[in-house]
């Protein structure tokens, strides 16, 4: 018979209608799934009792491997074994700084980079979906039924495209996303901070390969992300590497084979883990060459060789506090996240920096997933009415482009969602009948520094003098964080709108649409450029002609001066317009009108140069 869990008073589900919900920590290195069972948040293990699923996906001739199996083949089949796919979510090839050093065959697609594998070209969304599928199956087996949904965590700094990519991956894996939750917020929820005192909290997240520090502010049940910082290439692996180098140095080794390198790396990692509980760690290994390694690593030596790594975590922490405009004393609590925070040297350094003991009684590998599970349980409707509902905030400001490439923010960052804000704009030219609305996301003042989300046009504005039209632009963000923008001309009611689905290639249809859009813009861009160039050229010609008239006006024939003046005016008018062909035409007309005048000037200056000189002088 079915196994039952204890419900909250009065919250028993009808048979076959258990509201099974999970929290998923979709991590760069490892992923986890957790749920709330009989009021207790627990991480769900696989058949072998393992809670961490390595975020590694390998495509091969017979299918797909995810997790440990894929990880084991990583060295053997690097091209088809995708690790840390999270770094590619919602990113274009140009966003990936070290793409050249990765073993993958990247395919540059508009919006999001793709990877060519044995099983075909895969997008990061599809790769992530494979990881999520495994977690979903694990959860459904463990809970004995279908999931109503999941809360999936994302880094606080993820932008709209990265968040949307995460949601799409979930959808592809057959998971209904109840909500995306910021990782540091999830960690704070796991510690029950949302039920506690209002104040500022720091979340220190040192994982296998990434470091993130977030400063959160809890007020009225809402966590705001005040600032984030970190180092995307700093984690536990770097500490392992320092030990590995120390071993090589101490044992006088060099030029090791792949196999021996791996062996010593494994020992280095094991030694690091031993030092969490012990004062010293023995390192003994026999290399394939027969050489013996027999060393003892003490906590003192370990601290010394990793000192610079520890301080590398404190610099971003200091910066995050500074960005938030806070001092260390204003931080009420520090939450430790990520397996690498188990290291006593990290605990110590963080404790010293903040002047308080960090919260560390929950498993730092699991804390994000547990917080997500707690949130999922609430959203699935398994808690009483008096329970809190954590609100989400917009991570980056949303706005639109105004004249001069500047950004006008419409919804500021950290607004709670759902949110709707409207602002009125007007035309900048007489008789303007269309307005281009360019939606951007980011904190910078210049459009070029923000992320472009969408572009659309409001047409059919009745011709009026500049500044008379009233165009109301409404930004609306739903509970899922999806943005829709509507522009409406108030006097006629003409309206145009767009729902922002950040651009990247998932379905063929989307790719096609995007290509069309980019081509349309390409034409616009080209026209804009042609116009700008023609304007510059025209301006230069007018300047030149006017200078010539001032200098050699006496050479003009009767009526010629007036004709040239008319042409100059025509060119000026064309430059003020926005058709590059008209500018070019006017430019040519002016050129022709001044041809004979220019020829006369040339003759005159040649005559002048020659007068009074003998032929011999000129020839010599």
């Amino acid at each position, binding site marked *: *018979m079915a196994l039952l869990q204890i419900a909250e*008073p*009065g919250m*028993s589900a009808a*048979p076959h209608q258990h509201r099974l919900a999970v929290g998923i920590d979709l991590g760069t290195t490892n992923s986890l799934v957790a749920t709330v*069972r009989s*009021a*207790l948040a627990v991480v769900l293990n696989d058949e072998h009792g393992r809670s961490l699923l390595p975020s590694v996906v390998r495509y091969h001739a017979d299918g797909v491997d995810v997790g440990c199996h894929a990880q084991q083949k990583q060295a053997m089949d690097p091209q088809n074994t995708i690790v840390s796919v999270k770094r590619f979510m919602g990113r274009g090839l140009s966003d990936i700084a070290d793409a050249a050093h990765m073993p993958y065959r990247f395919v540059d697609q508009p919006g999001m980079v793709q990877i060519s594998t044995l099983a075909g070209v895969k997008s990061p969304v599809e790769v992530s979906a494979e990881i999520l599928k495994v977690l979903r199956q694990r959860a459904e087996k463990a*809970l004995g039924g279908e999931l109503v949904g999941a809360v999936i965590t994302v880094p606080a700094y993820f932008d709209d495209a990265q968040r949307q990519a995460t949601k799409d991956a979930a959808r592809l894996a057959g998971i209904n996303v109840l909500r995306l939750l910021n990782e540091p917020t999830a960690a704070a929820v796991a510690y029950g901070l949302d039920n506690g005192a209002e104040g500022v909290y720091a979340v220190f997240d040192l994982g296998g390969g990434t470091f993130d520090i977030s400063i959160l502010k809890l007020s009225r049940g809402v966590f705001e992300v005040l600032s984030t910082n970190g180092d995307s290439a700093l984690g536990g692996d770097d500490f392992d590497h320092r030990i590995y180098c120390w071993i090589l140095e101490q044992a006088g080794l060099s030029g090791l084979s792949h196999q021996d390198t791996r062996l010593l790396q494994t020992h280095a990692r094991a030694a690091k883990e031993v030092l969490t509980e012990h004062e010293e760690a023995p390192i003994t290994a026999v290399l394939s060459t027969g050489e013996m390694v027999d060393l003892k690593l003490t906590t003192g030596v370990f601290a010394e060789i990793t000192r610079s790594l520890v301080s590398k975590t404190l610099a971003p922490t200091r910066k995050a506090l500074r960005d938030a405009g806070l001092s260390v004393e204003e931080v009420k609590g520090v939450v430790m996240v990520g397996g690498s925070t188990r290291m006593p040297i990290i605990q110590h350094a963080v404790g010293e920096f903040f002047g308080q003991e960090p919260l560390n009684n929950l498993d730092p590998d699991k804390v994000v997933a547990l917080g997500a599970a707690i949130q999922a349980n609430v959203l699935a409707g398994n808690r009483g009415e008096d329970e809190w509902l954590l609100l989400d905030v917009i991570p980056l400001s949303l706005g639109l482009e105004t004249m001069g490439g500047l950004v006008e923010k419409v919804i500021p960052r950290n607004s709670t969602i759902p949110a709707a804000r409207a602002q009125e704009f007007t035309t900048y030219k007489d008789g303007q009948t269309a307005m281009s609305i360019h939606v951007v996301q980011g904190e910078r003042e210049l459009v070029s520094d923000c992320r472009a989300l969408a572009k659309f046009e409001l047409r059919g504005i009745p011709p009026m003098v500049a500044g008379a039209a009233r165009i109301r632009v409404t930004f609306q963000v739903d509970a899922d964080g999806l943005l829709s923008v509507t522009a409406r001309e108030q006097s006629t009611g003409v309206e145009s709108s767009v729902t922002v689905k950040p651009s990247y290639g998932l379905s063929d249809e989307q790719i096609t649409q995007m290509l069309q859009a980019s081509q349309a813009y390409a034409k616009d861009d080209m026209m804009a450029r042609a116009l700008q160039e023609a304007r510059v050229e025209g301006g230069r010609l007018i300047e030149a002609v006017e200078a010539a008239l001032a200098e050699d006006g006496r050479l003009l024939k009767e009526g010629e001066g007036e004709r040239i003046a008319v042409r100059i005016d025509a060119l000026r008018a064309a430059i003020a317009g926005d058709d590059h062909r008209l500018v070019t035409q006017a430019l040519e007309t002016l050129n022709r009108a001044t041809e004979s005048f220019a020829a006369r000037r040339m003759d005159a200056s040649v005559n002048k140069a020659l007068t009074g000189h003998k032929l011999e002088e000129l020839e010599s």
Partner: protein
Amino acid sequence: MAITMTEQAAKHVSNFITKRGKGVGLRLGVRTSGCSGMAYTLEFADEIGADDLQFESHGVKVLIDAKSLAYLDGTELDYTREGLNEGFKFNNPNVKNACGCGESFNV
């Protein structure tokens, strides 16, 4: 008339109540629904009602209303693990038919 709990079940219940931070015991019940007529309910109890019947098993208080007891008398609550799944199981001697999954039953 009695409801009992295995030691395993009692251990889990008291653990859950401790972690939950509140609760006086466990409330069992029956309600009419489901594909075979009746369904079990299993909830945390935050207070003891005037009409509640009380049983105690391995130190854990079990509350039940009189109407439900008629369907559950002699039931033993167990906690078991089936594969990756784990949870509570009603061993109810009154059941004549249960639906395939056992979540609902009739007597």
